């Protein structure tokens, strides 16, 4: 298992180099004029387009542009992101903890709820509760995130006034947060460690609507998979044998069936975490939540190549690490799995 883990971790730099060549290579399909677009903010600047292209070296051959980027990477400089007006590394450092925080608040409820509802639906197959859950799943599955997000915002913030609107903190706390000593970059945690429970509470409240949006949209698929997996396991021979041996339904369903039904959830759950950490781009944008997803949207829209590259590399890192974790978890859940 150790060898397997080391081998997988060693793949990371190779994956990243390959990805960077592909991404930078793809950007070369754009003309220098198109790649200069992020630096042009007014028609007047466009009149000096050629000067901007020369100053940025956008007509240089691909190897030179890649070499320039790579030599900077070696020095720890991931470039400057136009979308965030900050260095890419500083942007990731600032925004990733926010996304991690939102992911933590979201992922665990999603997994627990999905497993519970999927199991419930399977155990009550074709009964009323199953029918209702299936309708809810279809609803959640087909509802566009931006529609749900805006509806939740309109109802709970604008109409009822129960929850705060877009952003990470209320206005007064925006000023107060500058005094906080930052330990983790996560607002709730840092505020709590500073004894500023009011700020922690405020930040937590601002996460409710984005988290609920993600919960509804992302749970649907997991509930469906859990239900199907559970149904398959419930009709298997060993479950029948367990029942024949006189074990109670609670033990059979909970211990024998559900544990094996969880295998596909582990895979999907792994990708769920990758997705959340990679930034729930639409949700973060709607709620003006300052995570890396919101940054990526802006970077992509603005042809911010350094930003897109930084985000891509971060995502690649997360994918490789989480895939490794998922594979290892498989081994824990299913002793038949061997590592080579």
């Amino acid at each position, binding site marked *: 298992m150790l060898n397997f883990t080391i081998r997988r971790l060693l793949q990371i730099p190779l994956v990243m180099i390959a990805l960077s060549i592909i991404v930078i290579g793809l950007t070369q399909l754009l003309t220098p*004029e198109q790649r200069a*677009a992020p630096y042009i903010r007014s028609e007047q600047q466009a009149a000096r*387009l050629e000067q901007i292209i020369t100053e940025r070296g956008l007509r240089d051959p691909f190897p030179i542009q890649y070499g320039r980027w790579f030599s900077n990477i070696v020095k720890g400089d991931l470039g400057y992101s*136009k979308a965030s007006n900050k260095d890419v590394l500083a942007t990731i450092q600032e925004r990733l903890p926010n996304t991690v925080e939102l992911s933590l608040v979201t992922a665990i409820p999603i997994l627990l709820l999905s497993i519970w509802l999927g199991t419930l639906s399977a155990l009550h197959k074709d009964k009323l509760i199953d029918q209702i859950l299936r309708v809810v799943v279809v609803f959640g599955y087909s509802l566009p995130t931006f529609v749900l997000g805006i509806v939740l915002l309109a109802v709970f913030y604008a109409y009822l006034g*129960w929850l705060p609107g877009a952003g990470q903190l209320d206005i007064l706390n925006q000023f107060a947060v500058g005094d906080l000593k930052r330990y983790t970059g996560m607002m709730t945690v840092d505020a709590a460690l500073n004894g500023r429970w009011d700020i922690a509470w405020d930040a937590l409240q601002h996460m409710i609507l984005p988290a609920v949006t993600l919960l509804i949209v992302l749970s649907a698929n997991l509930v469906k998979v859990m239900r199907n997996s559970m149904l398959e396991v419930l009709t298997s021979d060993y479950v029948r044998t367990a029942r024949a041996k006189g074990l109670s339904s609670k033990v059979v369903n909970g211990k024998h069936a559900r544990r094996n039904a969880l295998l596909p959830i582990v895979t999907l759950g792994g990708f769920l975490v990758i997705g959340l950490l990679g930034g729930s781009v639409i949700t973060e944008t709607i709620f003006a939540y300052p995570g890396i997803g919101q940054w990526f949207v802006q970077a992509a829209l603005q042809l911010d190549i350094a930003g897109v590259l930084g985000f891509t590399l971060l995502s690649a890192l997360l994918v490789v690490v989480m895939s490794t974790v998922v594979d290892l978890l498989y081994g824990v859940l299913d002793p038949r799995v061997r590592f080579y």
Partner: protein
Amino acid sequence: MKKTAKKLATLSSLLLVSAALAASPTDTLVIQSSSDVPTMDPGVTYDTASSALVDNMYETLITYDGASLTKLVPLLATKWTPSNGGKTYTFDLRKGVKFHSGATMTCADAEYSFERNLVTNSGASGNWFIAEALTGTQSNAADDKTVTWARIDKSVECNAAGQLVFTLPAVDPAFLAKLAYTGQAILEKAYSTKIGEWDGTEKTWKDWIGKDLTDSELSKKPNGTGPYKLVRADANNHLFQAFDGYWGKKPTIKNVIQQKVPELAARQQALLRGDADIIDGGGRSVDEAQVKGKPGVTWVDDLPNTTSTAIFMNEKIAGANNALLGSGKLDGKGIPSNFFSDVNVRRGFSYAFNYQGYIKDVQNTKGKQRTMLMPDIFPGYDPKVKTYTFDAAKATDYFKRAWGGQLWKNGFVLTANYRASAPASQTAMEILKKNIESINPKFRVNIQAKQWSEMLADSKKGQEAMILIGWAPDYADADNFMYTFYASDGYYSPRANWKDASVDKWLKQARSTINTAERNRLYSLVGNRAYEQAPYILVPAPVNYTFYSSRVSGAPLTKAGFNPMTSLYWKELSKK
């Protein structure tokens, strides 16, 4: 199970009851915008999002007087004296002005600020026009070898009396207006040097030529003399506080927070709930439908618009085998590269555009047909110059005369590009297409979307046949528009390739005199000549509007006090 449900219910109630949802405090102005702030370095500020912040942190030597576009008043200067026939300007600087760092402003700081702009003068900046005034060329030293350190150094100096002296190579009637531009704000030399910016010496100036300052150290750590100082900036927020050491009248609003909220619906809800005071709208039709008339919202309409937009008819379409030309001949399957060089074609197209229809459909009736390609509130605008109207009969008449009758007989296929994701541009082109094609079934206009930067680049090479572009002012002077559009060596010349010797002569004369009446007369001549020659189809200008929380008030937010050349000055606002 029941216990869990009970706990969840309790937690939910707690959340809902305790949500801190008070409207924004009275001492805090909350601005929600849709876009990023590209830079906070005045030396490269050349967009509205950046200047909205920079203008409140930094100050220029002079500024516009309230809503006036013609009267300039001292700001960091106390007075100025022109001499040497308008080629030398001597400025007395205000005493006791402090930077946010605590240092006192000196003449050396002002000299440094201008020299920094002349040295760097990157493509992304708006320094080309101050460079033109002070060094005689729009270029920096990398692109124009005549720009030397001596020339830069000599153009702006401090004399023994501590006055700032500008020496111009030639008279520039727009010079003072150029000084009021955000980019000419005064920086602190010692502070800038300390944080890693150019040190202001001849020894290092070459290292800074053409350097893009967008992400400079100064952009990250601004330090101006303005009424507000930056307290903190993070992913979505810029926080400002009134500067205690400000030399002028203390602002009423203590805190300002500028938040980036990309989603329009979220911004609208924040405004309507009182959490935001000023927001970016979504365009007239959206804002009129969703914000206008709502409780707590003040709507101000019929504000001046200072952009000018035209459909360009390129008289010399470049590019070998340019696909836009089709067959490249007047054979009914394409157009020759000099298609628009016949004035009858240009007049025919000008009569074929439905100006009033555009105002009604695109601008919700809030549009204005202008006589010249410049803002109608600028000095030099002549409302008496004739305008084209939509007239299919006259268009037919001119098309029949064009190209000795060959155009009418053979027809043509013209391909025009418009800026992708710009509905107003697309609609303008569609209006033109529909009307032209209805005049003669042999006429065909194909329109296609194109990415903006690429379209601008191709048009600069003269490779676009017909495009729609606008211009926003850098300074309140007719020259900024008239020379740009109409001069044969103006910025937009390669896009139209229209050349008129008289117009060139008049524009140059207007540049070399400070006599306002004479300049106005010359611009009228240009306007009339342009009407006759029809190098452009003048797209009606939209009417500006603004809206904001009724809790906020101040002169710049009123029709009488609104100045389209300046940012919103927070120091002039109050909130209840």
